[in-house]
């Protein structure tokens, strides 16, 4: 399979400059996302899953700073390295080429706007000319092509940034443009299997249940048909039955639009059910990546194996990983997993293990499999 790579993160380093010290959140992360696949990014709290995904959209919040590495993103613009993009390129990239859904859908929806306004906003930011054209066409159909409204739309199409447009577009009705946007909003809501989309479009976030709000967020993310979707623990706070519905929806999206999805989760069950490939993160490093079947049947890195063993299975007791996740302020030298690892060797203390391909398409960073320099 020679699939196109849509996202390629190389040696990404991110630090957070806090009062307590410099938190080395990401320490040379390598991840790639291919066309039409679901990549599961697994790890515990604080392992850097979310920071990785936020970096791809250049949304790392201060006091975080991207210190090094490169992020390649397949976009419609000329610039392909996210780290070198200017603000306006970034703005047009976010939502159109790549978009994101989050863990707590209701926290990411604006409580004072209804669903139609919020989805409509994205549509108007990225696809305004399209809607203006449709609105003009519908006015022409109604034999009202010479009204102020129609002229206004034409003006907005012709010279969207001119002073006169910016002044005049405030006046007059925009009924037809709104009607076009609403049509599209309802269509998008329908595509995420929301029952009665016409009614939901008029609802406010507090009126939606958790599962419904997550669907709205997914609809919002898909409004401009991005090629890459980042899902940051989208089902963590949902019930299992609703989770199963959302997982199904994600699967359907992959099938229908051939979109690539970076799915962040800590639930290995979800990974097994949904993903094509898996990347396991620990304390700011990707320690292993590989095909989902390979990871579940023949994991190489001791951390991945410990993680798989900690899945509760009836009649076997609960196996835990000894110790706790290390602090990322002045982290330990060498391999960051070494003081919880049963196989730690001398070299693990000194040099960080390189991330190498051990089998075809199966990468791991561990000295157990040679590579002792």
């Amino acid at each position, binding site marked *: 399979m020679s699939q196109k790579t849509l996202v390629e993160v190389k040696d990404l380093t991110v630090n957070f400059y806090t009062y307590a010290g410099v938190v080395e959140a990401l320490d040379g992360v390598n991840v790639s996302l291919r066309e039409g696949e679901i990549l599961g990014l697994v790890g515990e709290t604080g392992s850097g899953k979310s920071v990785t995904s936020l970096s791809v959209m250049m949304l790392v919040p201060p006091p975080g700073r991207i210190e090094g590495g490169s992020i390649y993103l397949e976009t419609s613009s000329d610039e392909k390295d996210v780290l070198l993009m200017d603000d306006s390129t970034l703005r047009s990239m976010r939502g159109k080429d790549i978009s994101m859904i989050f863990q707590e859908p209701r926290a990411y929806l604006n409580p004072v706007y209804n669903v139609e306004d919020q989805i409509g906003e994205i549509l108007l930011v990225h696809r305004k000319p399209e809607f203006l054209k449709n609105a003009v066409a519908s006015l022409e159909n109604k034999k009202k092509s010479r009204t102020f409204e129609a002229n206004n739309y034409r003006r907005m199409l012709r010279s969207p940034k001119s002073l006169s447009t910016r002044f005049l577009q405030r006046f007059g009705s925009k009924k037809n443009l709104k009607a076009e946007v609403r049509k599209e909003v309802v269509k998008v809501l329908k595509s995420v299997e929301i029952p009665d989309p016409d009614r939901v479009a008029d609802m406010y976030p507090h009126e939606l249940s958790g599962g419904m709000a997550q669907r709205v967020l997914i609809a919002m993310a898909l409004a401009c048909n991005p090629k890459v979707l980042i899902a940051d623990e989208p089902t963590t706070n949902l*019930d*299992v039955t*609703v989770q199963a*519905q959302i997982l199904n929806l994600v699967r359907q999206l992959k099938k229908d639009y051939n979109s690539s999805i970076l799915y962040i989760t800590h639930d290995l*069950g979800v990974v097994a059910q949904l993903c094509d490939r898996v990347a396991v993160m620990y304390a700011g490093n990707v320690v292993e990546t590989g095909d989902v079947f390979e990871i*579940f049947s023949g994991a190489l890195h001791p951390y991945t194996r410990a*993680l798989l063993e900690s*899945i509760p299975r*009836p009649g076997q007791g609960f*196996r835990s990983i000894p110790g706790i996740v290390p602090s990322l302020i002045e982290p330990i030298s060498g391999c960051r997993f070494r003081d919880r690892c049963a196989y730690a060797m001398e070299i693990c203390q000194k040099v960080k293990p390189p991330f190498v391909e051990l089998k075809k398409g199966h990468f791991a960073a561990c000295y157990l499999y040679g590579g002792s320099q």
Partner: protein
Amino acid sequence: MSYLLQVRNLKKHFPIAGGVLKRSVASVKAVDGVTLDVLKGECFGLVGESGCGKTTLGKTVLRLYKPSMGHIFFGAPNDAVSEITNLEATNPKSRRLRRLREQYDISMYRGRDLLLLRRKMQIVYQDPTTSLDPRMLVKDIVGEPLIAQGIAKGEEAKKMVVEMLDRVGLSERALYRFAHEFSGGQRQRVAIARALVSRPDFVILDEPTSAVDVSVRAQLLNLFTDLQKEYGLTYMFISHDLSIVECISHRVAIMYLGKIVEYSTTEEIFQKPLHPYSQALIASVPVPDPSQRKERAPLTGEVPSPVDPPVGCRFHPRCPLAMSVCKQKEPLLIDAGNQHYVACYAVNRENS
């Protein structure tokens, strides 16, 4: 086998105030007629989706809420319980019934009785960040039940606190620290120490591991099983994570919209669930094995509002087996053989 906790037809309704006069216009029927027995020394799992009333049931059993209706017996002799149920049916106004209930039914307890009861029943909450006072030292957090109960104070209390902290895996150094100085798993250990320091018989664990990571989760679950053996505790384990419940519980009850729809031993429930809701719930759990993929969501729709639950069986709008009788009459929780209780017309023919 003796019962530690017996709950009979327990209801907890929360009024909704409305109108100009803020009168009660409707009520949220969070727990709506629950009957269950918890055996001494077992771990009783309570499973359900969010909003089904499992936490309310737990809090009502502890008398943190006043029940709207029903009985809760805690460590009551069996003959007293059966006499009360008999009298309730035959002579609900008798003085004997009233006296018995005041003695045994903890839903009637007040004042000092309730205080003494608290020593025997404790709870560990879901999120230790919010359930521990950020301005109290660990010494005071864990020592507070001792002082409130009048069990010990001063140096003696401190000694007991240190002993308890040691038992849950925290050192003496934790004494003079605040909750925010610990990691999530350690914080939950402080909460466990606080619950166990007064040596209760019965502990409700309300989603105690949903706020911690997978690797820490196993440590806590092991701690729970060890402590249960050591102190002879009885647990009620409330959770929405079925894989944990399957591993830790002896018996499991499945709740839907304020009612228990099925309960039996863990093996029975997970190996051959009878109620369509239980089947869907268990099938929804993602199996951590990529070769066992399920490409279909077993259940559509969402949980209806507990303000106005569906008439008849509460699950009928989402049930694949719904019949006409399900829309009219509520099914009773009946033994389908082998101590496996189910409330479903499709399973229990004699129910109708």
